[in-house]
């Protein structure tokens, strides 16, 4: 158990320092089922965003990361953005997926309700993210569909260091699941767009 005695003043974005933290994590964690310590290795974005929300970032670097994120977003299969909202609702409710306690063969959930209000009649919603109730009222212009698709695929394409997972880019949800979630948001008959209970 290596003792880190060199750490005194903490510099969040000090790359050298970040490596020592990685070492401590490797010392402190073990593989479990299908989840390995490989996940502890940060990519550039994670390292750059490992900081308090209030801390200002290096704008130039942020712009580069935003650009890279935007470029990586594919258009949806067959060019259609909207799938089946009933399936999308299940993805939004399902909080499992990629935890070492989950079945690696089962489909991953999006767990949208953890952080967002969606169907106004559902009381068990989170408030880490803005309410998405009535999202369909934004209309289905090409721009709006592309913005929402891109936001779901890789939120950093618009908001670097957002705390929403990169559902597409990190292979959490499949393109089909994302089309279904888009339908859940946009389809006028989806409960997300029902009037307040």
């Amino acid at each position, binding site marked *: 158990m290596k003792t880190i005695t060199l750490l005194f003043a903490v510099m969040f974005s000090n790359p050298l320092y970040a490596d020592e933290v990685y070492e401590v994590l490797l010392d402190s964690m*073990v593989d479990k089922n299908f989840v390995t310590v490989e996940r*502890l290795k*940060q990519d550039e974005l994670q390292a750059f965003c490992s900081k308090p929300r209030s801390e200002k970032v290096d704008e130039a670097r942020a712009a580069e990361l935003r650009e890279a994120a935007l470029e990586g977003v594919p258009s949806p299969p067959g060019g259609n953005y909207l799938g089946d909202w009933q399936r999308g609702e299940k993805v939004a409710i399902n909080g499992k997926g990629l935890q070492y306690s989950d079945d690696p063969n089962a489909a991953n959930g999006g767990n949208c309700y953890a952080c967002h209000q969606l169907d106004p009649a559902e009381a068990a919603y989170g408030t880490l993210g803005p309410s998405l109730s009535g999202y369909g009222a934004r209309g289905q212009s090409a721009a709006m569909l592309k913005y929402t698709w891109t936001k779901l695929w890789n939120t950093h394409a618009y908001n670097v260091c957002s705390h929403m997972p990169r559902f597409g880019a990190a292979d959490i949800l499949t393109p089909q699941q994302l089309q279904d979630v888009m339908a859940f948001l946009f389809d006028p008959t989806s409960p997300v767009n029902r009037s307040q209970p």
Partner: protein
Amino acid sequence: MNNRFIKIIFAIVIGLWSATLLSQGEGIFDEYRDMLGDDNPAIFVIFDGEEIWYAPAGPKSASLEQCDLGLGPGVVEGAYAQLPRYFADVDRVQDIEARLEHCMIQLQGLAPDEVSAKPYSLRGDLGTQLEALVAWIADQSSGLAIAPGQAHAQEKSAYALGETLFYYRAGTHDFSCATCHEQAGRRIRLQALPNLTTHEGAAAAYSTWPAYRISQGIVRTMGWRMRDCMRQQRMPELTMGSEASVALQTYLAVNGAGASMTAPGLKR
């Protein structure tokens, strides 16, 4: 013109009011908590912990009465409130679980992997010996001010490491502790999330663990809480009493220092 103006003001007021209501998730379960009253089944686990402390065990068939939790061999009252802290005999900062493991190995002659084979209860268990010991020991600090060790250099660096770990984003979901525990009045579904970067938030959390979890019928320790949060962050498994676990607990304890311990608490 001006009644339209009034309507706008009215809408803003309603918006602000509902926003604050929405963000205060805590109030939703007040009725539920009141009806539960103060009958906390942790009381049974506390009795067990005391029995285990005094019971001879291991190859040396020795009890834990000579175990030094930081206030001298065998001194239990008030010891939990001053953890994690630096222990010279192992030259490391330890939390309650790491320290108990050390005593079980040194005093009782148990093998390290034997002691850490099953640190936490699994579904269907009634509770491990470690959980019972921690429940009793924490109860022995109930009402005392949280005062983790911060004089020693390693204690300071544990805090610094804990703070950095708190913001460390990794894994498939890019989560860190801060993703959920850095803002006030937020919640996941209906689960209120304390802001652990503030004194009140850290105190509210740190002072109420270990806690009886009604959903599992088991007393869970703060070490387990760290591990289970990592699991939900899609991280690999956090080892009990490891440096990262101890550092995170140090970060919380220091942020919450001064508040009174009220463990074992009662949680969802």
